[in-house]
């Protein structure tokens, strides 16, 4: 299965409601519509992978982690530009994410300019 990116949808996967919600608000203020998912599983079962032009995901979540989600999408040949946001990312994790094709790896809390630039870059691909 592969995915086309005709729609410029941004998907946000984070189990923390307030982080996910405020992130959606931030993107909306920058003019990017987004959709939130509270787990990797919820995103995978939503069927929205095809329309997703940019994925912002937390790494540590109950159930499937962000890195596992990335691996899963890669395995499905659904290469979505992915921005990782994490509160406790170490270098090894960062390296693993970037090697698997992540476009950005941001520690929480992050600078809004950097995030929005990354999203814009991902959508412009």
């Amino acid at each position, binding site marked *: 299965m592969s995915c086309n990116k005709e729609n410029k949808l941004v998907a946000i996967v984070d189990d923390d409601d*307030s982080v996910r919600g405020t992130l959606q608000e931030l993107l909306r203020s920058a003019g990017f519509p987004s959709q939130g998912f509270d787990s990797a599983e919820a995103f995978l079962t939503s069927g929205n992978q095809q329309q997703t032009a940019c994925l912002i995901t937390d790494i540590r979540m109950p159930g499937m982690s962000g890195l596992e989600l990335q691996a899963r999408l890669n395995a499905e040949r659904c290469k979505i530009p992915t921005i990782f946001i994490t509160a406790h990312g170490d270098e090894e994790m960062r390296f693993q994410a970037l090697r698997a094709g992540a476009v950005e790896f941001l520690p929480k809390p992050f600078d809004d300019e950097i995030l929005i630039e990354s999203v814009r870059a991902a959508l412009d691909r």
Partner: protein
Amino acid sequence: MHWTKQQGIPLALRYGLALVSVGAALGVSLAFTHFNLPQPFSAFALSAIAITFWYAGTAPGILAAVLSSIVRDYLFESNTSTESRLLFDLVFLVFAFLMTRVARVRNQLELRVAERTAALTELNDNLKREIVKHHQVEAELRLSEAYLAEAQKLSHTGSWAWSPSSGEIRYWSEECYRVQGFDPKGGLPRYEEFFQSVHPDDQARIAEVIERAVRGREDFEFDYRIIHTGGEIIDARSFGHPIFDPSGDLVEYVGTIIDVTDRRQAEKERERLREAQADLAHASRMTTMGELTASLAHEVNQPITAVINGASTCIRWLTRDDPDLGEAREAASGVIRNAKRAADIINRIRSISKKGESKRQLVNVNELIGEMIALLRNEANRYSISIRSDLDIGLPEVMADSVQVQQVMMNLIMNSIDAMKDVDRARELVIRSRREEDQYLMISVSDSGVGLPSEQANQIFDAFFTTKSHGLGMGLRISRSIVESHGGRLWAANNSPHGASFSFTVPIPIGVPEQRSKPSNAHTNV
């Protein structure tokens, strides 16, 4: 017939006495005549009559008089005239008559003496009995006093009596002397002496307590210190109770002095032990919190990320070409909400890290569980463990130290997380709250981990027992002592097919109403 002494003497002897006495008078008179001395038979005969009357009674006395008369008439005065004989006979007769009177009076006297003697003897017997009884009572009293003294010694309690009007100490038991440090040989202490033996810092205070009680005619009670002559300081407590006479006047105070030094010492020891336990519990909490640092940092980091997101959003709405104040306000409210959440988390961490005395108050166990889940959710996330809570929301509140109860929950949850870290099956932690019969609440933490170490199942609550490479092995030991100090129980059991459950109970205080009887389940999947 009067009782007389003579009745005890045989009849023959009594009449014999008449014969013998008159015979003796005759013999002595003949002897006088033989030696040509004046013949005194009449005088001897009178004596014989008198003796016979006296010792042998009336009838033998009359016999003696008749005999005397015959003897005198025929042996000594045979040649005298009939008138002279008659005169002598008359004299004997009158004498005999007088002697009968004398004998009667004597008999009456003797009777009275006998009666009096009998009365006195009875009185004497009574007195003797009284004395025996008195001795018995005295012995009983001495025994009772000895028992009392022993009891006073054992309980370190002395008793006293004191007259407020004269200021005089009226009674001071042996134990009072010992406790107050006085020499019993010195007699009853004076009131001033009592005060001199009191610690200078306590004198004014107890003087005031006593004065106030006397003024109000009521009981008093005070703690004070005594300085013995050797410098030893005794902790004492005194109670006093006023005694009134029938007209309602205050007569005296009676009371006790108790040496509470040992008790106070034991209390201090217990206090030190409690402090040591609290220190240990705190140290254990801090160790656990140390293990949680990464998770707690993450937990605080989440709302801070949200705050920064919200603030950035707000600025973006304001700095657009056409600023949108409504959106900006909305974003700013989000900032406040999330900043509060961060503060709440920090407060939660601070309250459990706080070192303080045990404070018991009515707490809602379900709320404590909720807070603990919030604190440990991230730690569970780290190991892909889902936490589910299954709470009976109708539970009554219980008297507990919330920090300590949370410490127990934290220890159990951390143990469960540890037990599931390396298992491949679904990792699920379930926290339940239930009402157990009528007197207890039960909180249990179940996991799908490795289960209890089968061979050491009974050792898991021992101090320093641990299967972990980190930690002191104090967690369960401390948890158990916390639960027991609350009057509950903590135990562990294996689950089927795998995992373990740790459960503890907390007693429901009497008289606390149930909030709602309808049990309901709340699920929190993390």
